[in-house]
Protein backbone atom coordinates (compact mmCIF):
# COMPACT_ATOMS: atom_id res chain seq x y z
CA UNK A 1 0.00 0.00 0.00
CA UNK A 2 1.17 3.50 -0.75
CA UNK A 3 2.33 5.63 2.11
CA UNK A 4 0.63 8.98 2.39
CA UNK A 5 1.38 11.92 4.61
CA UNK A 6 -1.60 13.52 6.27
CA UNK A 7 -1.37 16.87 7.97
CA UNK A 8 -3.03 17.09 11.36
CA UNK A 9 -3.02 20.79 12.00
CA UNK A 10 -2.21 23.64 12.27
CA UNK A 11 -5.99 23.82 11.83
CA UNK A 12 -7.86 20.64 12.63
CA UNK A 13 -11.05 19.88 14.57
CA UNK A 14 -9.18 17.61 16.97
CA UNK A 15 -6.83 20.40 17.99
CA UNK A 16 -8.01 23.25 20.11
CA UNK A 17 -4.82 25.18 19.48
CA UNK A 18 -2.51 25.35 16.51
CA UNK A 19 0.22 22.75 16.23
CA UNK A 20 1.24 20.73 13.23
CA UNK A 21 1.54 16.98 13.29
CA UNK A 22 2.70 15.36 10.09
CA UNK A 23 1.59 11.78 10.13
CA UNK A 24 2.76 9.22 7.58
CA UNK A 25 0.16 6.52 7.22
CA UNK A 26 -0.12 3.28 5.35
CA UNK A 27 -3.83 2.58 5.07
CA UNK A 28 -5.10 3.21 8.56
CA UNK A 29 -1.81 2.46 10.31
CA UNK A 30 0.58 5.21 11.36
CA UNK A 31 4.16 4.64 10.25
CA UNK A 32 5.82 7.85 11.31
CA UNK A 33 5.00 11.09 13.05
CA UNK A 34 6.62 14.47 13.22
CA UNK A 35 5.74 17.50 15.26
CA UNK A 36 6.21 21.13 14.26
CA UNK A 37 5.77 23.90 16.81
CA UNK A 38 5.82 27.62 16.51
CA UNK A 39 2.30 28.68 15.69
CA UNK A 40 1.59 30.17 19.07
CA UNK A 41 4.61 32.23 20.04
CA UNK A 42 4.29 35.30 22.14
CA UNK A 43 7.84 35.91 23.26
CA UNK A 44 7.05 35.79 26.93
CA UNK A 45 10.57 34.87 28.03
CA UNK A 46 12.04 37.86 26.25
CA UNK A 47 9.23 40.06 27.46
CA UNK A 48 9.80 38.99 31.07
CA UNK A 49 13.32 40.42 30.96
CA UNK A 50 11.96 43.91 30.47
CA UNK A 51 9.34 43.83 33.22
CA UNK A 52 9.50 44.04 36.97
CA UNK A 53 8.90 41.00 39.14
CA UNK A 54 5.39 42.08 40.10
CA UNK A 55 4.46 42.75 36.50
CA UNK A 56 5.89 39.40 35.59
CA UNK A 57 3.46 37.59 37.89
CA UNK A 58 0.64 38.74 35.66
CA UNK A 59 2.60 37.97 32.55
CA UNK A 60 3.27 34.43 33.77
CA UNK A 61 -0.41 34.03 34.52
CA UNK A 62 -1.10 34.58 30.86
CA UNK A 63 1.14 31.79 29.65
CA UNK A 64 -1.79 29.43 29.91
CA UNK A 65 -5.50 29.71 30.43
CA UNK A 66 -6.06 26.48 32.29
CA UNK A 67 -3.00 26.16 34.47
CA UNK A 68 -2.53 29.89 35.02
CA UNK A 69 -2.05 29.40 38.74
CA UNK A 70 0.71 26.85 38.10
CA UNK A 71 2.89 29.34 36.30
CA UNK A 72 2.41 32.13 38.81
CA UNK A 73 3.03 29.84 41.76
CA UNK A 74 6.13 28.46 40.13
CA UNK A 75 7.38 31.95 39.41
CA UNK A 76 6.67 33.47 42.82
CA UNK A 77 8.20 30.47 44.56
CA UNK A 78 11.38 31.06 42.67
CA UNK A 79 11.40 34.76 43.50
CA UNK A 80 10.58 34.05 47.15
CA UNK A 81 13.51 31.67 47.44
CA UNK A 82 15.75 34.29 45.84
CA UNK A 83 14.59 36.90 48.36
CA UNK A 84 14.64 34.43 51.23
CA UNK A 85 11.05 35.17 52.14
CA UNK A 86 9.12 32.96 54.52
CA UNK A 87 5.51 32.84 53.37
CA UNK A 88 2.96 32.54 56.21
CA UNK A 89 1.23 29.19 56.60
CA UNK A 90 -2.22 30.54 55.85
CA UNK A 91 -1.00 32.06 52.61
CA UNK A 92 0.56 28.76 51.58
CA UNK A 93 -2.62 26.88 52.36
CA UNK A 94 -4.76 29.21 50.27
CA UNK A 95 -2.21 28.94 47.48
CA UNK A 96 -2.38 25.15 47.62
CA UNK A 97 -6.16 25.26 47.78
CA UNK A 98 -6.30 27.13 44.49
CA UNK A 99 -3.69 24.71 43.09
CA UNK A 100 -5.82 21.71 43.88
CA UNK A 101 -9.06 23.29 42.68
CA UNK A 102 -7.26 24.15 39.48
CA UNK A 103 -6.14 20.54 39.16
CA UNK A 104 -9.72 19.36 39.63
CA UNK A 105 -10.85 21.85 37.02
CA UNK A 106 -8.16 20.82 34.56
CA UNK A 107 -8.86 17.11 34.94
CA UNK A 108 -12.60 17.59 34.54
CA UNK A 109 -11.93 19.58 31.42
CA UNK A 110 -9.52 16.97 30.15
CA UNK A 111 -11.98 14.13 30.70
CA UNK A 112 -14.51 16.02 28.59
CA UNK A 113 -11.99 16.68 25.83
CA UNK A 114 -10.85 13.05 25.80
CA UNK A 115 -14.46 11.89 25.60
CA UNK A 116 -15.09 14.27 22.73
CA UNK A 117 -12.01 13.03 20.87
CA UNK A 118 -13.32 9.50 21.28
CA UNK A 119 -16.68 10.59 19.90
CA UNK A 120 -18.41 10.23 23.27
CA UNK A 121 -20.17 13.57 23.29
CA UNK A 122 -22.56 12.77 26.13
CA UNK A 123 -19.71 12.38 28.60
CA UNK A 124 -18.18 15.57 27.20
CA UNK A 125 -21.34 17.56 27.88
CA UNK A 126 -21.74 16.10 31.36
CA UNK A 127 -18.18 16.79 32.51
CA UNK A 128 -18.21 20.30 31.18
CA UNK A 129 -21.44 21.02 32.97
CA UNK A 130 -19.89 19.84 36.25
CA UNK A 131 -16.75 21.78 35.54
CA UNK A 132 -18.81 24.92 35.99
CA UNK A 133 -19.10 24.08 39.69
CA UNK A 134 -15.37 24.14 40.29
CA UNK A 135 -15.01 27.28 38.19
CA UNK A 136 -17.62 28.94 40.37
CA UNK A 137 -15.69 27.87 43.46
CA UNK A 138 -12.57 29.45 42.06
CA UNK A 139 -14.54 32.59 41.35
CA UNK A 140 -15.73 32.65 44.94
CA UNK A 141 -12.14 32.45 46.19
CA UNK A 142 -10.35 34.68 43.72
CA UNK A 143 -12.97 36.68 41.88
CA UNK A 144 -12.03 35.15 38.54
CA UNK A 145 -12.94 32.01 36.72
CA UNK A 146 -9.79 31.56 34.66
CA UNK A 147 -6.94 33.90 35.58
CA UNK A 148 -7.17 33.76 39.34
CA UNK A 149 -4.54 36.42 40.04
CA UNK A 150 -4.30 35.28 43.64
CA UNK A 151 -0.53 34.92 43.95
CA UNK A 152 1.81 37.66 44.89
CA UNK A 153 5.42 37.59 45.93
CA UNK A 154 5.34 36.68 49.61
CA UNK A 155 1.86 35.17 49.81
CA UNK A 156 -1.60 35.48 48.38
CA UNK A 157 -3.81 38.48 47.73
CA UNK A 158 -7.15 37.35 49.10
CA UNK A 159 -8.17 35.77 52.36
CA UNK A 160 -10.76 33.07 52.87
CA UNK A 161 -13.87 33.68 54.98
CA UNK A 162 -15.96 31.13 56.88
CA UNK A 163 -18.81 31.41 54.36
CA UNK A 164 -16.44 30.75 51.50
CA UNK A 165 -15.09 27.69 53.29
CA UNK A 166 -18.59 26.27 53.64
CA UNK A 167 -19.33 26.89 49.97
CA UNK A 168 -16.12 25.15 48.96
CA UNK A 169 -16.90 22.08 51.06
CA UNK A 170 -20.39 21.97 49.61
CA UNK A 171 -19.18 22.22 46.02
CA UNK A 172 -16.47 19.64 46.64
CA UNK A 173 -19.04 17.13 47.84
CA UNK A 174 -20.94 17.52 44.58
CA UNK A 175 -17.77 17.16 42.51
CA UNK A 176 -16.80 14.05 44.44
CA UNK A 177 -20.14 12.40 43.75
CA UNK A 178 -19.96 13.24 40.07
CA UNK A 179 -16.37 12.03 39.76
CA UNK A 180 -17.36 8.70 41.33
CA UNK A 181 -19.96 8.39 38.60
CA UNK A 182 -17.41 9.19 35.90
CA UNK A 183 -14.96 6.71 37.39
CA UNK A 184 -17.56 4.07 36.83
CA UNK A 185 -18.47 5.34 33.38
CA UNK A 186 -14.95 5.96 32.10
CA UNK A 187 -13.63 2.57 33.13
CA UNK A 188 -16.59 0.32 32.33
CA UNK A 189 -18.41 1.77 29.31
CA UNK A 190 -17.51 -0.88 26.71
CA UNK A 191 -17.22 1.28 23.61
CA UNK A 192 -15.13 3.91 25.41
CA UNK A 193 -12.84 1.33 27.01
CA UNK A 194 -12.47 -0.39 23.63
CA UNK A 195 -11.24 2.90 22.22
CA UNK A 196 -8.74 3.75 24.95
CA UNK A 197 -7.29 0.50 26.24
CA UNK A 198 -4.11 -0.72 24.57
CA UNK A 199 -3.84 2.54 22.63
CA UNK A 200 -0.78 4.77 22.70
CA UNK A 201 1.51 2.41 24.57
CA UNK A 202 4.44 4.11 26.30
CA UNK A 203 6.61 1.54 28.08
CA UNK A 204 8.21 2.46 31.38
CA UNK A 205 11.77 2.63 30.01
CA UNK A 206 10.71 4.83 27.11
CA UNK A 207 8.81 7.15 29.41
CA UNK A 208 11.93 7.52 31.54
CA UNK A 209 14.39 8.04 28.73
CA UNK A 210 12.15 10.50 26.87
CA UNK A 211 11.66 12.53 30.05
CA UNK A 212 7.86 12.37 30.08
CA UNK A 213 6.17 14.15 32.96
CA UNK A 214 2.96 14.18 34.91
CA UNK A 215 0.04 11.80 34.38
CA UNK A 216 1.67 10.49 31.19
CA UNK A 217 4.67 9.34 33.23
CA UNK A 218 2.58 8.06 36.13
CA UNK A 219 0.37 6.03 33.80
CA UNK A 220 3.53 4.19 32.78
CA UNK A 221 4.01 3.03 36.34
CA UNK A 222 6.49 5.58 37.67
CA UNK A 223 5.41 7.22 40.91
CA UNK A 224 6.95 10.58 40.23
CA UNK A 225 5.12 13.60 41.58
CA UNK A 226 6.83 16.89 42.36
CA UNK A 227 4.50 17.36 45.30
CA UNK A 228 6.07 14.27 46.88
CA UNK A 229 9.59 14.34 45.42
CA UNK A 230 10.25 18.01 45.88
CA UNK A 231 7.57 19.26 48.31
CA UNK A 232 6.99 22.94 47.68
CA UNK A 233 4.55 25.12 49.64
CA UNK A 234 3.37 22.92 52.53
CA UNK A 235 2.79 19.69 50.67
CA UNK A 236 5.10 17.81 53.04
CA UNK A 237 2.52 18.04 55.82
CA UNK A 238 -0.51 17.03 53.78
CA UNK A 239 -1.52 13.40 53.53
CA UNK A 240 -2.07 12.29 49.95
CA UNK A 241 -0.94 9.48 47.71
CA UNK A 242 0.60 9.50 44.25
CA UNK A 243 -1.70 7.85 41.73
CA UNK A 244 -0.17 5.52 39.18
CA UNK A 245 -1.33 2.99 36.64
CA UNK A 246 0.66 0.18 35.08
CA UNK A 247 -1.20 -0.27 31.80
CA UNK A 248 0.96 2.37 30.02
CA UNK A 249 -1.91 3.25 27.63
CA UNK A 250 -4.57 5.93 27.28
CA UNK A 251 -6.88 4.06 29.64
CA UNK A 252 -4.12 4.25 32.26
CA UNK A 253 -3.93 8.01 31.76
CA UNK A 254 -7.69 8.27 32.18
CA UNK A 255 -7.50 6.25 35.39
CA UNK A 256 -4.57 8.27 36.74
CA UNK A 257 -6.37 11.54 36.15
CA UNK A 258 -9.61 10.34 37.69
CA UNK A 259 -7.77 9.04 40.76
CA UNK A 260 -5.82 12.28 41.02
CA UNK A 261 -9.03 14.26 41.00
CA UNK A 262 -10.29 12.18 43.90
CA UNK A 263 -7.00 12.80 45.75
CA UNK A 264 -7.25 16.51 45.02
CA UNK A 265 -10.76 16.59 46.42
CA UNK A 266 -9.42 15.01 49.61
CA UNK A 267 -6.58 17.52 49.76
CA UNK A 268 -9.01 20.41 49.33
CA UNK A 269 -11.14 19.07 52.19
CA UNK A 270 -8.07 18.75 54.39
CA UNK A 271 -6.84 22.23 53.51
CA UNK A 272 -10.18 23.89 54.20
CA UNK A 273 -10.69 22.04 57.47
CA UNK A 274 -7.15 22.65 58.74
CA UNK A 275 -6.67 26.19 57.52
CA UNK A 276 -4.32 27.86 60.01
CA UNK A 277 -5.00 31.38 61.22
CA UNK A 278 -2.62 34.26 60.75
CA UNK A 279 -1.31 36.51 58.05
CA UNK A 280 -1.67 35.66 54.37
CA UNK A 281 1.39 37.45 53.06
CA UNK A 282 4.61 39.17 53.96
CA UNK A 283 6.03 42.30 52.41
CA UNK A 284 8.40 41.63 49.59
CA UNK A 285 11.29 43.87 48.57
CA UNK A 286 11.03 45.52 45.17
CA UNK A 287 14.56 44.60 44.20
CA UNK A 288 15.72 41.03 44.31
CA UNK A 289 19.27 40.27 45.29
CA UNK A 290 21.52 38.57 42.82
CA UNK A 291 21.21 34.84 42.45
CA UNK A 292 19.49 32.07 40.60
CA UNK A 293 16.67 29.74 41.47
CA UNK A 294 15.08 26.65 39.99
CA UNK A 295 11.44 26.36 40.89
CA UNK A 296 9.49 23.20 40.22
CA UNK A 297 5.78 22.71 40.46
CA UNK A 298 3.39 19.85 39.77
CA UNK A 299 0.93 21.37 37.33
CA UNK A 300 -2.16 19.38 36.34
CA UNK A 301 -0.27 18.29 33.23
CA UNK A 302 3.00 17.47 34.93
CA UNK A 303 6.22 19.06 36.03
CA UNK A 304 6.42 22.77 35.43
CA UNK A 305 9.86 24.32 35.87
CA UNK A 306 10.96 27.93 35.96
CA UNK A 307 14.56 29.01 36.07
CA UNK A 308 14.97 32.55 37.31
CA UNK A 309 18.17 34.52 37.36
CA UNK A 310 18.21 37.87 39.08
CA UNK A 311 20.80 40.60 38.78
CA UNK A 312 20.07 42.75 41.79
CA UNK A 313 17.59 45.06 40.07
CA UNK A 314 13.80 44.97 40.02
CA UNK A 315 13.82 43.10 36.70
CA UNK A 316 14.92 39.52 36.17
CA UNK A 317 17.98 38.82 34.08
CA UNK A 318 16.46 35.70 32.62
CA UNK A 319 13.27 33.73 33.13
CA UNK A 320 13.13 30.32 31.55
CA UNK A 321 9.78 28.58 31.48
CA UNK A 322 9.30 24.95 30.58
CA UNK A 323 5.67 23.92 30.56
CA UNK A 324 4.77 20.24 30.96
CA UNK A 325 3.37 19.81 27.46
CA UNK A 326 6.71 20.46 25.78
CA UNK A 327 8.32 17.70 27.83
CA UNK A 328 5.68 15.25 26.65
CA UNK A 329 6.05 15.78 22.90
CA UNK A 330 8.90 13.29 22.35
CA UNK A 331 6.88 10.68 24.22
CA UNK A 332 3.80 11.48 22.12
CA UNK A 333 5.66 10.82 18.89
CA UNK A 334 6.73 7.48 20.33
CA UNK A 335 3.12 6.71 21.29
CA UNK A 336 1.72 7.63 17.90
CA UNK A 337 3.90 5.17 16.00
CA UNK A 338 2.11 1.97 15.00
CA UNK A 339 -1.27 3.29 16.09
CA UNK A 340 -4.31 3.84 13.90
CA UNK A 341 -5.47 7.12 12.38
CA UNK A 342 -8.49 6.89 14.62
CA UNK A 343 -6.16 6.94 17.65
CA UNK A 344 -4.34 10.16 16.78
CA UNK A 345 -6.74 12.55 18.52
CA UNK A 346 -6.97 10.31 21.57
CA UNK A 347 -3.24 9.79 21.96
CA UNK A 348 -2.56 13.44 21.43
CA UNK A 349 -5.30 14.45 23.83
CA UNK A 350 -4.02 11.97 26.41
CA UNK A 351 -1.02 14.15 27.23
CA UNK A 352 -3.50 16.99 27.78
CA UNK A 353 -1.68 19.22 25.34
CA UNK A 354 -1.59 22.90 26.08
CA UNK A 355 0.14 24.38 23.10
CA UNK A 356 0.12 27.97 24.27
CA UNK A 357 1.95 26.79 27.41
CA UNK A 358 4.58 24.97 25.46
CA UNK A 359 5.33 27.85 23.16
CA UNK A 360 6.14 31.22 24.52
CA UNK A 361 9.50 32.42 23.24
CA UNK A 362 9.63 34.55 20.15
CA UNK A 363 8.96 38.19 20.28
CA UNK A 364 7.27 39.45 17.18
CA UNK A 365 6.48 42.93 18.36
CA UNK A 366 8.52 45.84 17.16
CA UNK A 367 9.98 47.00 20.45
CA UNK A 368 11.76 49.98 18.97
CA UNK A 369 8.60 51.49 17.56
CA UNK A 370 6.82 51.89 20.85
CA UNK A 371 4.15 54.41 19.95
CA UNK A 372 1.30 52.68 18.20
CA UNK A 373 0.05 54.39 15.12
CA UNK A 374 -3.21 54.26 13.30
CA UNK A 375 -2.49 54.00 9.63
CA UNK A 376 -4.86 54.45 6.78
CA UNK A 377 -4.90 51.93 4.02
CA UNK A 378 -3.27 54.42 1.67
CA UNK A 379 -0.39 54.97 4.06
CA UNK A 380 0.11 51.27 4.48
CA UNK A 381 0.20 50.90 0.74
CA UNK A 382 2.68 53.75 0.47
CA UNK A 383 4.94 52.17 3.06
CA UNK A 384 4.53 48.88 1.39
CA UNK A 385 5.57 50.16 -2.01
CA UNK A 386 8.50 51.96 -0.44
CA UNK A 387 9.74 48.79 1.24
CA UNK A 388 8.99 46.95 -1.94
CA UNK A 389 11.22 49.31 -3.87
CA UNK A 390 14.05 48.68 -1.44
CA UNK A 391 13.63 44.96 -1.60
CA UNK A 392 13.23 44.95 -5.39
CA UNK A 393 10.15 42.76 -5.34
CA UNK A 394 11.65 39.84 -3.49
CA UNK A 395 9.76 38.76 -0.44
CA UNK A 396 11.77 38.21 2.70
CA UNK A 397 9.35 35.67 4.08
CA UNK A 398 7.91 33.94 1.04
CA UNK A 399 4.53 32.46 1.78
Amino acid at each position, binding site marked *: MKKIKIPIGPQHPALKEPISLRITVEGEVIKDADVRL*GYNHRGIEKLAESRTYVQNIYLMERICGICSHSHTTCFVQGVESLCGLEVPKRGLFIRMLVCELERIHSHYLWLGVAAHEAGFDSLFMYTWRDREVVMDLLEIISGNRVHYAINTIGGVRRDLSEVQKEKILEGIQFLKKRMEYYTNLGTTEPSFVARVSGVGILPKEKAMSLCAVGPTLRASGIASDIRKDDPYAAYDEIPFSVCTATSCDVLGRVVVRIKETMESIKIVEYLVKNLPSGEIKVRAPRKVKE*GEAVSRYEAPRGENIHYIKSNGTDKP*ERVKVRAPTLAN*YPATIEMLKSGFIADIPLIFAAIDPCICCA*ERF*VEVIDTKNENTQVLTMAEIKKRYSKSQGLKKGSSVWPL
Partner: protein
Amino acid sequence: MNQAEIFEKIRTNLSAQITDISMPSPRRIFVSVAPEKLIETLKILKDDFGFYHLSTISGLDKITGFEVLYHLANSFVSLTVRVQIDRAKPEIISICEVIPGAILYEREIQDMFGIKVINIPDSRPLVLPDDWPEGEYPLRKDWNYQPPAETIPGEEQ
Protein backbone atom coordinates in the same frame (compact mmCIF):
# COMPACT_ATOMS: atom_id res chain seq x y z
CA MET B 1 19.40 8.91 50.45
CA ASN B 2 18.83 12.52 51.37
CA GLN B 3 19.99 15.77 49.88
CA ALA B 4 23.06 16.20 52.06
CA GLU B 5 24.29 12.70 51.24
CA ILE B 6 23.78 13.27 47.53
CA PHE B 7 25.63 16.55 47.79
CA GLU B 8 28.56 14.92 49.57
CA LYS B 9 28.63 11.98 47.21
CA ILE B 10 28.63 14.14 44.10
CA ARG B 11 31.42 16.25 45.57
CA THR B 12 33.62 13.26 46.29
CA ASN B 13 32.78 10.93 43.39
CA LEU B 14 32.74 13.54 40.66
CA SER B 15 35.65 15.65 41.82
CA ALA B 16 37.48 14.89 38.58
CA GLN B 17 34.69 16.27 36.42
CA ILE B 18 33.09 19.15 38.25
CA THR B 19 34.78 22.44 38.97
CA ASP B 20 32.31 23.97 41.38
CA ILE B 21 29.43 22.75 43.53
CA SER B 22 26.91 24.64 45.65
CA MET B 23 23.52 24.16 47.30
CA PRO B 24 21.94 27.62 47.65
CA SER B 25 18.55 26.38 48.82
CA PRO B 26 17.12 23.05 49.95
CA ARG B 27 17.06 20.32 47.30
CA ARG B 28 18.81 22.49 44.72
CA ILE B 29 22.36 21.63 43.72
CA PHE B 30 24.35 23.58 41.13
CA VAL B 31 27.51 22.15 39.62
CA SER B 32 29.83 23.49 36.93
CA VAL B 33 31.35 21.28 34.28
CA ALA B 34 33.76 21.88 31.44
CA PRO B 35 32.09 21.40 28.01
CA GLU B 36 34.27 18.46 27.05
CA LYS B 37 33.41 16.56 30.24
CA LEU B 38 29.65 17.08 29.93
CA ILE B 39 28.66 13.72 28.44
CA GLU B 40 30.86 11.82 30.86
CA THR B 41 29.41 13.67 33.85
CA LEU B 42 25.83 13.16 32.74
CA LYS B 43 26.48 9.44 32.25
CA ILE B 44 27.82 9.09 35.77
CA LEU B 45 24.97 11.14 37.19
CA LYS B 46 22.43 9.04 35.35
CA ASP B 47 23.88 5.64 36.18
CA ASP B 48 25.06 6.20 39.75
CA PHE B 49 22.64 8.82 41.08
CA GLY B 50 19.47 8.13 39.10
CA PHE B 51 19.35 11.52 37.42
CA TYR B 52 17.56 10.13 34.40
CA HIS B 53 15.05 12.95 34.14
CA LEU B 54 16.05 16.09 32.31
CA SER B 55 13.63 18.84 33.23
CA THR B 56 14.85 21.28 30.67
CA ILE B 57 17.88 23.03 29.22
CA SER B 58 18.17 26.74 29.84
CA GLY B 59 20.37 29.03 27.88
CA LEU B 60 21.79 32.18 29.35
CA ASP B 61 23.46 35.08 27.62
CA LYS B 62 26.09 36.54 29.94
CA ILE B 63 27.39 39.06 27.38
CA THR B 64 30.93 37.71 27.92
CA GLY B 65 29.82 34.24 26.97
CA PHE B 66 27.00 31.79 27.04
CA GLU B 67 25.93 29.48 29.77
CA VAL B 68 23.92 26.33 29.19
CA LEU B 69 22.17 24.88 32.20
CA TYR B 70 20.95 21.29 32.26
CA HIS B 71 18.26 20.93 34.90
CA LEU B 72 18.29 17.31 35.97
CA ALA B 73 16.15 15.71 38.63
CA ASN B 74 15.84 12.48 40.54
CA SER B 75 13.30 11.76 43.23
CA PHE B 76 15.24 13.67 45.91
CA VAL B 77 16.93 16.73 44.48
CA SER B 78 17.07 18.94 41.45
CA LEU B 79 20.56 19.23 40.02
CA THR B 80 21.68 21.91 37.62
CA VAL B 81 24.74 21.25 35.51
CA ARG B 82 26.28 24.48 34.29
CA VAL B 83 28.43 24.65 31.18
CA GLN B 84 30.28 27.78 30.06
CA ILE B 85 30.64 28.43 26.36
CA ASP B 86 32.83 30.85 24.53
CA ARG B 87 30.85 33.55 22.73
CA ALA B 88 33.20 33.52 19.76
CA LYS B 89 32.69 29.80 19.22
CA PRO B 90 29.17 28.93 20.40
CA GLU B 91 29.19 25.15 20.21
CA ILE B 92 28.12 22.39 22.51
CA ILE B 93 27.91 18.64 22.21
CA SER B 94 24.50 16.99 22.01
CA ILE B 95 23.48 14.93 25.04
CA CYS B 96 20.82 12.96 23.17
CA GLU B 97 22.87 9.75 23.38
CA VAL B 98 22.61 9.89 27.18
CA ILE B 99 19.15 11.42 27.50
CA PRO B 100 17.06 11.01 24.32
CA GLY B 101 14.37 13.30 25.68
CA ALA B 102 16.71 16.28 25.37
CA ILE B 103 16.14 16.70 21.65
CA LEU B 104 13.46 19.37 21.79
CA TYR B 105 15.33 21.46 24.34
CA GLU B 106 18.50 21.31 22.27
CA ARG B 107 16.65 22.41 19.18
CA GLU B 108 15.20 25.25 21.19
CA ILE B 109 18.62 26.36 22.40
CA GLN B 110 19.86 26.23 18.83
CA ASP B 111 16.99 28.44 17.67
CA MET B 112 17.04 30.93 20.46
CA PHE B 113 20.72 31.44 21.19
CA GLY B 114 22.40 30.27 18.05
CA ILE B 115 24.47 27.80 20.02
CA LYS B 116 25.35 25.08 17.59
CA VAL B 117 24.62 21.65 18.98
CA ILE B 118 27.04 19.10 17.56
CA ASN B 119 25.76 15.62 16.70
CA ILE B 120 22.14 16.61 17.17
CA PRO B 121 19.91 13.92 15.60
CA ASP B 122 17.49 16.46 14.15
CA SER B 123 18.68 19.98 13.55
CA ARG B 124 15.62 21.59 11.96
CA PRO B 125 14.30 24.73 13.65
CA LEU B 126 11.76 23.92 16.33
CA VAL B 127 10.00 27.08 17.34
CA LEU B 128 11.16 29.59 14.77
CA PRO B 129 9.67 29.66 11.29
CA ASP B 130 11.49 27.71 8.58
CA ASP B 131 12.28 30.93 6.75
CA TRP B 132 13.60 32.80 9.78
CA PRO B 133 16.58 34.90 8.69
CA GLU B 134 20.05 33.54 9.42
CA GLY B 135 21.89 34.95 12.36
CA GLU B 136 18.86 36.23 14.26
CA TYR B 137 18.76 34.74 17.75
CA PRO B 138 15.90 36.21 19.76
CA LEU B 139 17.04 35.48 23.30
CA ARG B 140 20.52 36.94 22.94
CA LYS B 141 20.84 40.15 24.86
CA ASP B 142 22.16 42.09 21.88
CA TRP B 143 19.34 41.00 19.61
CA ASN B 144 17.56 43.88 18.01
CA TYR B 145 14.53 42.91 16.14
CA GLN B 146 13.77 44.41 12.74
CA PRO B 147 10.56 43.07 11.36
CA PRO B 148 10.97 42.38 7.67
CA ALA B 149 8.75 44.25 5.26
CA GLU B 150 5.50 42.48 4.77
CA THR B 151 4.79 41.33 1.27
CA ILE B 152 1.26 40.68 0.17
CA PRO B 153 1.15 38.00 -2.52
CA GLY B 154 -0.39 39.15 -5.78
CA GLU B 155 0.22 42.83 -5.14
CA GLU B 156 3.74 43.12 -6.50
CA GLN B 157 4.49 46.30 -8.30
